[in-house]
């Protein structure tokens, strides 16, 4: 068997795996869409503003509505305390006020 034929088999195998993953993504998308209907009710009914991703600091639990200066507010010159503060960007509107 020529080396290029072995490569062809390898590429076919990878295509098969990626095709299966593509089908999985379609299925997951469909499932998540049904969940989003419930999430939309929760957001509207409770007036929620943020996703529950990081719960350690208020400026990463509620980046949309918390104080943008919070990381440096504990005392003058206080440096960032929580790890997530280094990975999350400050929302644009926070710099206005």
């Amino acid at each position, binding site marked *: 068997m020529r080396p290029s034929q072995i490569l062809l088999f390898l590429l076919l195998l990878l295509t098969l795996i*990626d095709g299966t993953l593509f089908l999985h993504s379609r299925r997951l998308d469909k499932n998540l869409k049904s969940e989003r209907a419930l999430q939309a009710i929760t957001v509207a009914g409770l007036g*929620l503003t943020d996703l529950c991703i990081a719960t350690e600091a208020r400026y990463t639990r509620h980046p949309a509505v918390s104080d943008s200066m919070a990381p440096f507010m504990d005392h003058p010159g206080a440096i960032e305390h929580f790890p997530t503060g280094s990975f999350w960007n400050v929302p644009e509107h926070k710099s206005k006020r």
Partner: protein
Amino acid sequence: MIPKGLEKQFNILDFSLSSLWRRKLKNLGIMLVFALVIFLLGSFQMLTGALTNSAEAVLKNTPEITIQKMSAGRQEAIPLAYVEKLHSIYGIRAIIPRVWGYYFDESNLANYTVLALDSDLLPNGSELNLTLVFGHFPKRTESGTAVIGRSIQDILELQERRVFSLFRPDLTLKSFNVVGLFSRQTDLLTNDLIVMNLDDARDLFAMPTSMVTDLCAYVANPAEIETIAKKIAVMLPDTRVLTKTQIQKTYQVVFSWRSGFASICLLTALIAFAILAWDKASGLSLEEKREIGILKILGWETGDIMAVRFWESTLVSSLAFILGCTAAYIHVAFFDATLLKPVMVGWSVIHPPFKLLPAITLGDLMLIFTLSVLPYLAATVIPAWRCSTVPPDSVIR
């Protein structure tokens, strides 16, 4: 019958594959490191894209205008008397007072989000019970009751128990009866949430009855949100007024490529790989130089030698790209982005599950391809060209 030009390329491809296999340890090593870098870049992009997409899809119904009182650069409680002032602005349909805040559970070192409002006044408020596995939302008159998120149930080890207690600021205990549990489908929003009625939240936080945390305003005509927000900002200059659009834009920014440390770490990994690839690929070994010399003596042209190197580099980098991207999808979709999750949640004790659809766009794939594969091709083909233009007898000697 294969055309002659194509047959030649197949032969060169066979030669390239044999050549790669001869130095399999070196080439497999480069390919694995390459795939790892692409995996990290791809995982980060797929995870942050998925979170951004989820936020965009889910946060469509956030409050239209949120009003917070500011003092000395911090948010503080807002007087209920402001509601009366706001009623004088024409176009405001409803103003909903909210009490919300954080409760730090010292025994579990976890932060809970406590939220209280009269949900019957909000859009979809009557349908809220659909989001619960069991029970109902606390009614205005139902004192000492709460609906909790799934992580709260786990961390307080409630199981079948329905009663739990939280400390007031003066360290006296306040008991709550669990009257509802949020379903798994809303984990992305409610995992750390305790919902109660306004009186209970004021009692828990020792907040005066004349104060609330913030106000949510809903307007009659959505096209007037910005105008009414400006009117509120003028009328109440000591407040911060956030509109629905600003809240929705938040998640377009917080996880961007510029989001601090993560991008620095990933770009450092990419640069480190570029240096490794340059070192491994550009410095042709004596054996490789002799091979090129012998091929030239046997009648191979410079173009043929470059084609061999091109095929070798293309195979290594493209396979690494496919493997890296495939592994990144599997990592985010099947393993909840286990490697990146600690970065996203920091020291949080409550870890909401990330059931997300990895976000893959053609633009992202092209960006990763351009940052990784193209520099590698350049780093390998150019030295081969320089070597193949040298007279063969000087290389062999």
